[in-house]
């Protein structure tokens, strides 16, 4: 006798909690064959703004954590993802229409990507910072620091989990907090990743995941004065030039859309794109 399964309610992930959209809206998530999989929350402007508030509140703690600590927390995500591989493989199989081997390879790569970025947390400052030999009695040091709140439009193509991880992990390394708009048509692994984040040691608000229509939500993030940077990696099908123009009003740092299998390829530059270089001059006594 078959046991009747218990389907999951997929909600948003904001400030470490799993609220429904304040708008009360949902949209149907379908499998590649058109079968009903779930009702996902259709995030609104208000949800996006709540997510920014949560991200801003979490910034001090996350940016202020030691680099060793941030590295361990990011590594912990890989550990928990590893333990829930099968759940992600199932979701990817059903929503992306790939076989178990392909889905499994995607999950493996997503896990490895967390590990790779985790290792950067206590190294990128050494690689990108600099001691500067100025002409005078000064100790002069340049150090990269997190930019602040980063809004991300996650890749919208296939490989929904890997695309999401590839976009949010580099922003987290330096201590930024993130508001990410998930893959619209395949949002299930994004919300399940939220559950992984909630049960790993990532403080609430460090990653905020909004599902729904990127076309509807992105303009509110691009114009939001409390968002410091905008990663348009998955915005290729939106009017992304208009988003970039909106972002110019608050001089946000903007990364352009990327397409194809190489989108959001792991790179030190993705970490550094969301950092600011601070140079401090200290006087030396004349002995």
């Amino acid at each position, binding site marked *: 006798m078959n046991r009747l399964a218990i389907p999951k309610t997929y909600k948003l992930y904001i400030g470490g909690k799993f609220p429904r959209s304040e708008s009360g809206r949902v949209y149907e998530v379908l499998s590649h064959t058109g079968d009903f999989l779930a009702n996902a929350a259709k995030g609104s402007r208000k949800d996006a703004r709540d997510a920014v508030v949560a991200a801003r509140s979490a910034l001090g703690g996350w940016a202020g954590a030691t680099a060793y600590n941030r590295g361990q927390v990011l590594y912990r995500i890989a550990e928990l993802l590893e333990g829930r591989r099968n759940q992600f493989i199932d979701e990817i199989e059903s929503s992306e229409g790939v076989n178990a081997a392909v889905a499994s390879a995607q999950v493996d790569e997503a896990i*490895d*990507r967390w590990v*790779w970025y985790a290792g950067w947390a206590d190294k990128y400052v050494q*690689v*990108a910072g*600099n001691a*500067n*030999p*100025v*002409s*005078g009695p*000064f100790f*002069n040091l*340049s150090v990269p620091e997190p*930019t602040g709140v980063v809004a991300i439009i996650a890749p919208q193509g296939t490989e929904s989990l890997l695309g999401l991880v590839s976009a949010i992990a580099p922003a987290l390394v330096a201590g930024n907090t993130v508001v990410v708009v998930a893959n619209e048509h395949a949002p299930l692994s994004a919300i399940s990743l939220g559950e992984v984040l909630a049960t790993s040691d990532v403080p609430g608000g460090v990653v905020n995941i909004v599902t729904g229509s990127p076309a509807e939500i992105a303009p509110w993030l691009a114009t939001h004065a409390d968002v*410091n940077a905008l990663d348009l*990696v998955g915005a*290729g099908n939106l009017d*992304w*030039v*208009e988003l*970039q*123009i909106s*972002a*110019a*009003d*608050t*001089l946000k*740092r*903007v*990364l*352009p*859309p*990327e*397409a*194809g*299998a*190489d*989108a*959001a*390829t*792991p*790179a*030190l*530059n993705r970490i550094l794109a969301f950092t*600011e*270089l*601070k*140079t*401090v*001059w*200290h*006087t030396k006594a004349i002995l």
Partner: protein
Amino acid sequence: MKFLDYAPAPESQALLNLKSDYGLFINGAFTAGRGTPFHTINPATEQQIAMIATANETDVDAAVSAARHAYDGVWSRLSGSDRGKYLFRIARLVQERARELAVAETLDNGKPIKETRDVDIPLVAAWFFYYAGWADKLDHAGVGPNPASLGVAAQVIPWNFPLMMLAWKIAPALAAGNTVVLKPAETTSLTALLFAEILQQADLPAGVVNIITGDGSTGATLVNHPGVNKVAFTGSTSVGRAIARSIAGTDKKLSLELGGKGANIVFDDAPIDQAVEGIVRGIFFNQGHVCCAGSRLLVQESIHDDVIDRLKRRMQTLRLGDPLDKNTDIGAINSAEQLARIRELSDLGEQEGAERWSADCEIPANGFWFAPTIFTNVSTSHRIARDEIFGPVLSVLTFRTPAEAVAKANNTPYGLSAGIWSDKGSRILAVADKLRAGVVWANTFNQFDPSSPFGGYKESGYGREGGRHGLAAYLKPAVRSGSRSIIAADHRTPSVTKKSASAGKKSVSAEKAAK
């Protein structure tokens, strides 16, 4: 003249050999501009110095074409060591003609000769000397092995440090292998045109550097030119925004160095006399026409009265007057327009309830002048605590705890500079960590060096000038064939979708609307 007064000691203008008319410097030669020429004046006397050409769209096009031609034909094929040799030559020629450049700069800008002689022009030479040595060492610039230059760089610079800003822009661009079209500020084109003569003496290949003059519309035409690969702008935040809007969707690489409202934080354990010197250097250096000026003094409440007394006493000794005089501390405001803005914001400061005090100094009859001024009883909501005044006007606020000092210092959309005065090293390090500013000076202020990166957080812009990071702003990683291997992909840049034609039109009109 009274006993112990200084006798006038003006620097001679005899070493200047200025022309009455200057054309545009395009493809290695001076050519007439097609726009309406204008006079550049001495802001200390309002006398005309020379006639400057205006580049119209055709001229901008010619300059960009010359730069492209030089890039394709000469500069991008030259070895790094040969590019470096040209930059070393330029550095030496600037040193040789340093006094002439200092006098010309003071004449055209109004800043004191002691600053152009001891700060601006030496830094110009240092900047070229520093980046000259980078030209054949680009593998170490931090963008991966064998990095590529970008192409033609469009550079638009402000009037506050005319030749120094030119050096900050041109030296790294050329070292990295780019060619340049540079537009100096309308009121301060003179030294850029003398610099063009230096380029001729250096025998720099034609078209590698092109200098076009004119007002903001010439600059807008330049940055929006489709033949440009890199835009570097230093100036106001409003124009910076307009540029960011106008090039949205293109693959032009952008550096913006914009406004600031720097906090100069003085703790109760600071060496007060040194701090007072630092406050003066922070806000009265270059008449306060400094984007990274320490225009907000945050002084710990317990020492407020003492600091203000000593600051006023020190300000009484500042000598305002003939910028060519070797004893002058405060020169002329660069333009009537800027003077009007300083007056407007200062009047607003009084209206909003802050207490105004100005040093007692004689204002010359002609020219544009503003006495060194401080406002006390300023609150964080006052316009003079929020807007960049860009003049010799200091707003004084107080704080009780380090946390309050940090909160007030960061309470601005800008994030360019900050200063910390304290004898306690651990406090300096902790406060420096929390300040959201690109440059922090501890027990000093307004120090610049070609090896030290400079640039802002937040609405003070993005990108860095100076140091290794300033070089990287003119480079891109080597183009390599794709592979998904994590290790090989380390330095890859994202592939960028090109902007559509309609989007381009939209952004250009946005730029015009903002002017």
